[in-house]
């Protein structure tokens, strides 16, 4: 019972007095006090980051000589404040001897909500290390990469390119077909290639510049080439002609078995 009495007395002490005014944080609240003497003003050493700001909105002197002060306050953090902490007499002396001026600042937000009214974190665009640093990095890359690439290309020693083997000459193409024709029956594609190679060979030998159809027509009438080509034609295309023997073919093609390499390119 004794303990309960002590607790009630403590609650009734001025430090835990009921607030004279309430305001939502960030919203201006108003409280009026009366003084017997002296003038009040806000503490000049507080800056805008202070959790409680106060201004003397108006001053009135009553008929009894007491002075009423209308004080406007803004709290940025929820809690119970004593405006004596942010006020001084006009001459700069403390007003600690005055009665407490409790005001309550509360918040409608949840306890886990961010409570800072002013942005205190770094803006997202504020790059780590500084904008200038990254600008320099970008410039170095922009200049450096082309320089490296160009330098590599200039300093690069070309790989030794092995030229592709030259296409086989007419003689090289003709030789195995002529050999085969003397020894065995040629397949249809081989016969076709042999015939056309002989045409191309003679066209080159005689230096015929005209288009191929006209050149072929001339070759068939040529004194040397004509006999060979007409015989081959007869062998390969004329169903009425008797097929030549291997010896006949071998004899016919003998001149083409000993063509020196490169003679027909």
């Amino acid at each position, binding site marked *: 019972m004794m303990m309960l009495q002590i607790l009630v007395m403590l609650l009734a002490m001025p430090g835990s007095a009921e607030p004279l005014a309430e305001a939502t944080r960030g919203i201006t609240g108003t409280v009026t006090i009366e003084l017997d003497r002296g003038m009040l003003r806000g503490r000049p050493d507080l800056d805008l980051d202070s959790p409680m700001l106060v201004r003397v909105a108006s001053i009135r002197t009553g008929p009894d000589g007491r002075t009423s002060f209308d004080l406007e306050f803004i709290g940025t953090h929820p809690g119970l404040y004593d405006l004596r902490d942010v006020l001084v007499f006009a001459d700069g002396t403390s007003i600690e001897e005055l009665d407490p001026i409790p005001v309550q600042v509360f918040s409608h937000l949840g306890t886990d909500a961010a409570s800072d009214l002013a942005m205190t974190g770094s803006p997202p665009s504020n790059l780590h290390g500084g904008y200038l640093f990254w600008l320099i990095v970008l410039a170095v890359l922009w200049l450096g990469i082309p320089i490296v690439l160009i330098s590599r290309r200039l300093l690069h020693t070309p790989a030794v390119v092995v030229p592709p083997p030259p296409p086989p000459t007419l003689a090289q*193409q003709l030789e195995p077909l002529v050999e085969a024709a003397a020894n065995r029956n040629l397949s*249809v*594609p081989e*016969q*076709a*290639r042999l*015939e*056309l*190679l002989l*045409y*191309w060979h003679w066209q080159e030998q005689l230096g015929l510049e005209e*288009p*191929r*159809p006209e050149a*072929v*027509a001339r070759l*068939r009438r040529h004194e040397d080439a004509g006999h060979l080509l007409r015989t081959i*034609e007869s062998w*390969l*295309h*004329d*169903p*009425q002609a008797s097929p030549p023997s291997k010896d006949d073919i071998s004899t016919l093609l003998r001149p083409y078995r000993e063509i020196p390499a490169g003679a027909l390119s």
Partner: protein
Amino acid sequence: MTDSIAKAAGAGTTFAGTVRETVARTVVGQEVVVERILIALLTGGHLLLEGVPGIAKTLLVQTVGRAIDLEFKRIQFTIDLLPSDVVGSEILDSATGSFRIHKGPIFTNLLLADEINRASPKVQSALLEGMQERKVSIGDTTHELPAPFLVIATQNPVEQAGTFELPEAQLDRFMMRHQLSYPTQEQETEVVRRGLELKLKRQGEGAVPMTAFDAIDDSSPFHVRDLTAAMESVLQVHVSDVFMRDCVELATLTRSHPDIELGCSPRAAISLVQASRARAFIHGRDYAIPEDFLALAEDVVLHRMRLTYEALAQGRRGEDVLAEILTALA
């Protein structure tokens, strides 16, 4: 060579020679074109002639038709031509009150489709359908076209404004495309000289100057039955396996050449073999030889292949690419 085949081969030389002589009485030069027209007639293929105006395309075709006693008609293709202007239409006979068929100019043996690329695709399509199927539909009735039936179409390669280029699928319907060139100076001199010999054509008391068309020899040394017999003989011309390999290989190589975007269809190889047979017949042979397909390759193959954009940008021509392919055949 057996007697019948030898006789047929000899008949080919005679047939071609006589037609050439008849044509030469009216047209100067153009021996290659006459041969191409004969090949088209003998094989039933169709021919596309490309050339500038004024080089006697119409006169030539009409003369060949007259030499074989073929019915000849000509259509000048224009932008406002309608399919019914080509194939015909049903018209109301006011006397009987019923519809009767009015057959269009396509019902002929030899049709000259002048400047085919000037007509709309719908008209081109109607003609090409008739060329392919040898029959046309008028109203609800399908009509067979006469036999023989040959279309010789012309294109002017210079004036392309307001024309409808034949797409590849329709070009493929033509067995051959031949590019006509100007006559030589001697030939042109002869043309002018013959022009001086033309007299007046009297009509009653008036007269008009004769044209080369009036000078066409009316006598027909051959008739349709002679052409049919020649066509039969062409079918007996032998084609060896080696020759077929050459033709098929040529068509195949056009499909893999790096400068060619669209190669030849199998129809190209078929056309090359058929045309070569006819050429062998005309030259008095009963078997085809490489000279035949080499002579015809440009006319049969070039209009069936399309070069790549890169090749065209490099100034490559179809003739150059084809020459490479012919070399690669061996």
